[in-house]
């Protein structure tokens, strides 16, 4: 970067044509589709004034919805962290029947439309569903409770963790593990002291991506959630409800808070990743 700015030039000359066209179109399209609409979102709630904005986002129903969204997203992300590591480990290290099929199925939540996932999960976990009935027999009610939201978010977030870990795990040579075993460490010590620290940054990235996706998730959640205000109503649904009531500023206020927290989470993620990289 420093080399570029010497002499005041903001770009290095190139023999290839098309710089103006490609960068110009990129910037135009980026602004029109993403930046200007997001600016409209960020500006909108301030028509309420600062105190109006604060009271809009601290209304009990809004706070409860944000709490449900972030709480369930965090629980699902932690569960995905453990199971994602387990699934990635098994897929990279072991051979077993149907491994190729299982590997391909991991991406299903990326490819399956969220409303389809939503009605399928709701049917599956309803009181008379294939999984809901055995759970009900155990005294657990999954559909139409926060537990149902967590289940949907596990479904949505799983591939992020597995797909982030897989390439790192396969690049991981066996040599450090061999060295650790030679020095007398047992398998668990080797995993805990040698493998886990190397995987650290990837685990954080994958879990963070799953968390970020879960916060904003709408389609797969609303069918199974039950959508009870103050209990199982997620923030994106409350935005939709406010829009239907023509409360644009109120909807935008929730949107701005979600956007701000997502960006903060991304920022924290980058910092944490840098820290894990340093300390691995």
């Amino acid at each position, binding site marked *: 970067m420093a080399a570029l700015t010497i002499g005041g030039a903001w770009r290095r000359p190139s023999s290839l044509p098309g710089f103006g066209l490609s960068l110009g179109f990129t910037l135009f399209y980026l602004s029109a589709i*993403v930046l200007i609409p997001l600016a409209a979102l960020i500006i909108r709630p301030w028509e309420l004034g600062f105190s109006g904005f604060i009271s809009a986002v601290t209304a009990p129903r809004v706070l409860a919805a944000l709490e449900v969204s972030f709480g369930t997203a965090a629980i699902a992300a932690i569960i995905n962290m453990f199971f994602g590591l387990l699934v990635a480990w098994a897929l990279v290290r072991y051979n077993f029947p149907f491994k190729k099929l299982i590997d391909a199925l991991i991406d299903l939540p990326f490819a399956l439309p969220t409303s389809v996932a939503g009605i399928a999960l709701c049917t599956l976990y309803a009181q008379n569903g294939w999984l809901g009935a055995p759970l009900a027999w155990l005294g657990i009610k999954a559909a139409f409770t926060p537990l149902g939201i967590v289940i949907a978010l596990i479904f949505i977030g799983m591939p992020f963790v597995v797909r982030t870990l897989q390439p790192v795990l396969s*690049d991981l040579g066996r040599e450090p593990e061999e060295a650790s075993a030679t020095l007398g460490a047992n398998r668990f010590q080797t995993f805990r002291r040698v493998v886990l620290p190397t995987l650290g940054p990837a685990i954080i990235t994958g879990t963070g991506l799953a968390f970020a996706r879960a916060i904003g998730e709408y389609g797969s959640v609303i069918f199974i959630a039950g959508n009870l205000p103050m209990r199982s109503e997620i923030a994106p649904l409350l935005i939709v409800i406010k829009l239907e009531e023509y409360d644009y500023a109120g909807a935008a206020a929730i949107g701005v808070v979600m956007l701000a927290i997502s960006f903060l989470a991304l920022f924290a993620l980058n910092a944490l990743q840098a820290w894990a990289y340093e300390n691995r």
Partner: protein
Amino acid sequence: MKTMRGATEDHPLMKLGLIGLTIAFVALFLFLPLIVVFSAALDKGIGIALHALTDPDALSSIKLTLIVAAIAVPANVIFGVAAAWAVAKYDFVGKSFLVSLIDLPFSVSPVVAGLSYVLIFGMQGWIGPWLRDHDIRIIFALPGIVLATVFVTFPFVARELIPLMVDQGRDEEEAAVSLGATGWQTFFRVTLPSIKWGLLYGVLLCNARAMGEFGAVAVVSGHIRGLTDTMPLQVEVLYNDYQFVAAFAVASLLAMLALVTLTVKSLLEWRYADELSAIHRH
């Protein structure tokens, strides 16, 4: 002969346990929801399911979904190629910032994306009143649905092509230009052949999301029956109407699209691993 377990091998019981847990997890959380979709669609026989698909509202939702994808996907392909060309072939200040801005839509909730367009084009939006006076419909109409879809599928092609084209460098293009090729000739004869599988990969993922997007489209569609309901929205409408067989019939079409996407994606990763971006080489 008794074989020794290698120092980096897990205990056989541990191995068995982890494999068992993996299969159980994937079966319960991924496979079962997929099976439920098809089983619920065929609950009353295949005739009823097929009949539900020929309902005029279902047909119009299929048509709308195809139209939306046919506009949104090419738009993002043109953008993705332009952005990857700019990032990979030139050095300029702010490049890494530009690349992170391109990924931005992935960290925005689809509902918030839809909301942003309503705040611009909606009745109480920035230019809503002007649009109404000139009888232009964007929100609760096709343009809004296309815009919301373009937003959520924005990064797919670009993020596939950028690492791929950065990896490939610019020597071949520079050679072509120095031999007298024009910019377009260079792109179509030199660059495109070497990125075609990566491009197809990006298009595949972009298309799956474009046809399946729900949250962003739900906000801008207005749910006008037979007019602004895409297939994922039609699924919701039918389900909330307690027309479960019909809902799952439309849903199973979308599930089949997802399965085709996964199959082609796996084939591409397996066959053309070297020509896809480094992220997929594992």
